[in-house]
């Protein structure tokens, strides 16, 4: 009951940020930004480093970041906290708890374990303990199931794995999607167009693990070109990254195609030709931006889709990324691990969306006017 109320209150608070006046937004946004940066820096550089990093970040934000971005920060940081809270509540609502199957535990043993790990029976209390531990002590807490390890120790090696896989997949989807889409749009109704769009349709009609499995069968088992699964070399990256990137590629290709077609019909393209510009300049300097903008808008959801897909692809190709920690943690009811991975995932997403916002403002000067 209390949890529901807290959630509702949090949501109302978030909604209220819409009414924040510009001056306050700049101050509050910079502070929150600095705070988050400080907490993150602290993991690698200790308490002092965290404070310094935080202050510097706050200053930079105050002076340089556009209002648009700071408004987002004011909304997103509390939202992140709320998300963590929501995740905690969900975990607590799930049947079972971390200590349920530990040798036939008597209530005293359980109570002792709970105290040791800081996992009370109440979700609110746990949330309080967890946040305090995170902000004051700068740690994600001990893993309940893996003895003697903190969550950061567990996730740290997995994080770069998932990150590189995800970034590679995203880059591939943008490159493939954009080129294919623009090409198709420029040569409308040609064989190239139908072929590209056909491929794109297939890309969105099959789940990534099906594509991955097919690739596995063809390229590993039949042809033997690539290793079946695992991690370690560049060859291990190829199939998972491709499988992961295909659905997003397809969507981007379709967006780019309609984007470029629409732009090419605009008057300013005609003006560009009337000035005598060679077609390469017309497309490259004038038209392309119009095709890129809808794609950039999609990058946020694309990243989310790739993250979603990564759970499945990591399992399929036995890749030691964060996905497996999350799933294992969830099944074992290892609250700290689940929250730790949740924070990293959500944080990455938020960061990425902020970057996309900045990119969008850079691409479309009409949006930049918001710089109060």
């Amino acid at each position, binding site marked *: 009951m209390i949890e529901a109320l807290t959630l509702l209150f949090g949501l109302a608070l978030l*909604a209220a940020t819409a009414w924040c006046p510009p001056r306050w937004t700049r101050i509050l946004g910079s502070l929150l930004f600095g705070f988050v940066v400080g907490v993150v820096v602290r993991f690698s550089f200790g308490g002092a480093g965290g404070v310094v990093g935080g202050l510097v970040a706050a200053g930079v934000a105050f002076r340089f970041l556009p209002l648009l971005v700071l408004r987002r920060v004011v909304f997103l940081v509390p939202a992140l906290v709320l998300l963590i809270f929501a995740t905690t509540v*969900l975990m607590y609502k799930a049947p079972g708890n971390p200590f349920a199957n530990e040798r036939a535990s008597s209530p005293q043993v359980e109570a002792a374990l709970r105290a040791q790990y800081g996992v009370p029976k109440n979700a609110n209390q746990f949330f309080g303990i967890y946040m305090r531990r995170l902000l004051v002590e700068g740690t994600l807490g001990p893993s309940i199931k893996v003895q003697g390890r903190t969550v950061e120790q567990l996730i740290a090696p997995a994080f770069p794995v998932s990150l590189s896989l995800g970034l590679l997949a995203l880059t591939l989807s943008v490159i493939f999607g954009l080129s294919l889409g623009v090409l198709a749009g420029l040569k409308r109704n040609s064989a190239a167009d139908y072929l590209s769009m056909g491929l794109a349709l*297939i890309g969105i009609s099959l789940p990534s693990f*099906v594509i991955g499995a097919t690739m596995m069968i063809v390229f590993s088992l039949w042809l033997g070109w690539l290793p079946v699964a695992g991690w370690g070399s560049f060859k291990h990256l190829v199939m998972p990254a491709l499988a992961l990137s295909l659905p997003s590629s397809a969507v981007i290709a379709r967006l780019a195609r309609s984007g470029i077609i629409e732009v090419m019909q605009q008057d300013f393209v005609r003006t560009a030709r009337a000035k005598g510009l060679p077609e390469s300049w017309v497309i490259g300097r004038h038209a392309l931006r119009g095709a890129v903008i809808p794609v950039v808008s999609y990058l*946020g959801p694309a990243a989310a889709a790739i993250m979603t897909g990564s759970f*499945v692809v990591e399992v399929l190709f036995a890749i030691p990324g964060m996905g497996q920690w999350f799933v294992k943690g*969830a099944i074992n009811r290892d609250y700290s691990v689940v929250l730790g991975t949740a924070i990293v*995932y959500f944080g990455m997403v938020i960061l990425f969306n902020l970057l996309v916002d900045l990119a969008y403002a850079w691409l479309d000067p009409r949006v930049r006017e918001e710089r109060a």
Partner: protein
Amino acid sequence: MTTPARIDAAPRSPFQLAFRRLLLNRAAVAGALVIVVMCVSCVLLPILLQLDPNHTQPALRNLPPSSRFPFGTDSVGRDVLARVLVGGRASLLVGLASTAVSVLVGVSYGAVAGFYGGKVDDAMMRFVDFLYGLPYMFLVILIMLMFSETARGEMLPVFLALGLVQWLTMARIVRGQVLTLRNQEFVQAAELLGASDLRILVRHVLPNVVGVIVVYATLMVPSVIILESFLSFLGLGVALSWGQLVSDGVAVVNPIRSYWWLLFWPSAFLGLTLLSLNFIGDGLRDALDPKART
């Protein structure tokens, strides 16, 4: 003396015109036929042919396709054809039901946001923008885990969880449409006549939004089915669905015997259904707004 240009005698509603355009789209029509055949087959064929997807016959396990078992058998001797057809029922049902949930939630949310505009809209859409960028599978998985002991393999939680994932797109689109329509004169006229907000919304605004809703709902079904297959792959989905079958098929892939039929048939059905749905959705979109046709 003037020769007037020819005037079309029979007036047609925009929906009728759109429908005619749709019929001209061969891909969309083909897709629709495929879907109908698929639905009918999955629902009726197992009954007509007396197929049992759960009848295990260990002696007949892992047989490649033959005349007796057109799709082969799986690792415990079950008829893959039966499993694919019956599994199809679940996948299609999940698609429909989850989309229905999304549409319900999304349309209500978007209509309210678009109708009231201003700060209300601002706040509501902030929320949507935020959720849009999340790896929602995260939360879906957690939700599924929540129910995993009590209702493993059941459909209802899957409907709800997946429906709650997709409503964002619908909300955004409906809000955009409602916002535009809101400022049209016919709405203002209704207001002047004293119609209540709800009445205006339901009788004047929504009928004009229906087209867009239908288009995006059609395009949503494939994504939901794919998401369900993800869940199945992780062991959290419905007990017998295409996703589950594909996942099982992938699990037995090994360098010596590929057991390709375990992977191929469910994937083919899945892919074909989704492709058809996409064709229909694209066709609907082109039919309803030919200016946007590319």
